């Protein structure tokens, strides 16, 4: 029997991954103060604009999709004869 990878079966590893992810997020916000954000548009000069816009876009996408599902979802065999 081939051996399996089970790294994410251990909740501790999932927790570590999540912690690493959150730390990366904080570092990214801090990093913005070290680079010059030279955008063409005024919004780009707001601190953390990309972080906020990314987050909001994502949430909006999911919630609009959920509403859309009410209108367009059909049974899997909808087109079958």
């Amino acid at each position, binding site marked *: 029997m*081939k051996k*399996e*990878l*089970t790294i*994410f079966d251990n909740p501790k590893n999932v927790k570590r991954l*999540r912690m690493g*992810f959150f730390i*990366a*997020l904080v570092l*990214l*916000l801090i*990093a*913005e103060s*070290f*680079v*010059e*954000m*030279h*955008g*063409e*548009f005024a919004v*780009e000069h707001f601190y*953390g*604009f*990309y*972080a*906020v*816009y*990314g*987050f909001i*876009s*994502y*949430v*909006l*996408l*999911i919630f*609009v*999709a*959920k509403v*859309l*599902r009410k*209108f*367009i*979802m*059909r*049974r*899997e*065999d*909808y*087109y079958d004869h």
Partner: protein
Amino acid sequence: MITNMLPPALIFVLGAILIPFLRGKVKAVYMLALPVVVFITLLNLSLGNTWIVEFWGYELIMGRIDKLSLVFAYAFTIMAFLGILFALQVKDNLQHVSGFIYAGSTLGVVLAGDFLSLYIFWEIMAVSSTFLIIASRTRASREAGFRYILVHLIGGLFLLAGIVLYIQKTGTIAFDYIGLDGIESYLIFIGIALNAAAIPLHAWLPDAYPMGTPTSTVFLSAFTTKSAVYLLIRTFPGADILLVIGALMVSLPIFYAVLENDIRRVLAYSLMNQVGFMLVGIGIGTELALNGAVAHAFCHIIYKALLFMAAGSVLQMTGKIKCTEIGGLYKTMPLTCLFCLVGAASISAFPLFSGFVSKSMIISASAHEKIFLIWMVLQFASTGVVDHAGIKVPFFTFFGHDSGIRAKEPPLNMLFAMGIAAALCVGLGVFYQPLYNLLPFPVHYEPYTGAHVVGQLQLLMFGALAFTLLILSGYYVPEVRSKNLDADWTYRKFGRFAYKLLDKGLNSLNRISEGVLMGIVKSVVSFFNRAAANIALFLSVNIWLLLGYRDKRLEIKKNRLYNDIMQGTLPIGIGAAVAISFILLVFLLT
């Protein structure tokens, strides 16, 4: 050079004919050698027109070699190599032959300098790709293939009509920049846009592509849409309508991708979204934007093929490809999982991966032109890509809930194909200068500025944060077995309804018309029938009177004759006599 005798298109198309006669290792080596020969041919070409053939007084240019056509030809040839390497273990020759003809005709389209050879290759492309769709030999794939070819033949007719008008107007079959001006340009535009899956002419793509075999879908993902992108760059750069179509294409399909259960259909919607980025680039039409569209097409062909290869590997090894049925596959397919993650990072435009160095050119171009709304839409769509292609595809396939499936890694050739594609994705992302050198215009663009990297990473990572929070709180879109309505509804459901409507409406009209018409015909016929009988009686009775028949005997004779005429049971001699006497009577009366 001996390799320059044949155009690349013909090397593939003619080379494909030999495939069914070869077996085993010889066949494998031969198939892998064909793209290599084409690549060497391309490398040896000098700029300008070659392979010019006289045909009915027209000049067919099978080799318009400039920077724009060359970069696409390179991408398609690399793609053909990867696709065939991935499909090497497939025994079905139909797939190999149609795959090569498909790739060859695409090269023909890209290198064509005139409309006639373009159109011929265009139609070969449509037909050969249909065989790749129906190659899974299921009822669903046959039906999807049928819809696919119908849509593309109609698109081809638009293109042909446009071409005919164009030739009539300009007197030449050569083409370059056209621009939207006049009926012929709109017809050509519609024909090309359909192949680019431009909304609202897009439904064939998510309908048909996920129906292919694990390996044929990889082929399908590359050629048709990107050859259309190439043609749009050449013929309609800067067309404003492409901004609108592109903006719709980057944004609408991502909602469908979020909801879709079939991984390959998620990737099909994602393909549309990526082509949308290219169309926006073409719509902006500046040198930076067009460079961006070309670079994005190049990178996209490779990472999209990589993603379809990963999905194909999963389908081949598990027989399943729906989110609700798979999950936790990283345990036994770690390499496939790794390659899929590389593809996901590339399409999400993560720094150091290929999508970053190409997509950012288009977004920057929109910023340079100060098109704020488009810029916001593109950034929004970038987050959408992170969701469906960057996270959903790898997460629900390889992680997520454990489906209990313990499938092995795919065969070595498939792993190699994915490995090379993944290496190219990272290679293009890190060493982007060779790609930039291939672009049609000189590049003054630096993707790796601090602002760019930090901004892009924030956008992606905080999108991923939203995913994490939504999935932990249970608010993420649940995976459901379902079918989502798209524009193909118009010809799949409404089409059938319309057919029934026409059947009921027109056929009952038919029946009424038939009734009315038959009534008139019947009465006319019976009138003439009776007229004939009466004339015959009139003539006969006089003769009978002369011969001395009277009363009952005359009555019997009259009845018998009348019935014989009305029922058509008259002996032929008498019928002829009546007819002749009728003609005689008419002749005498006039």
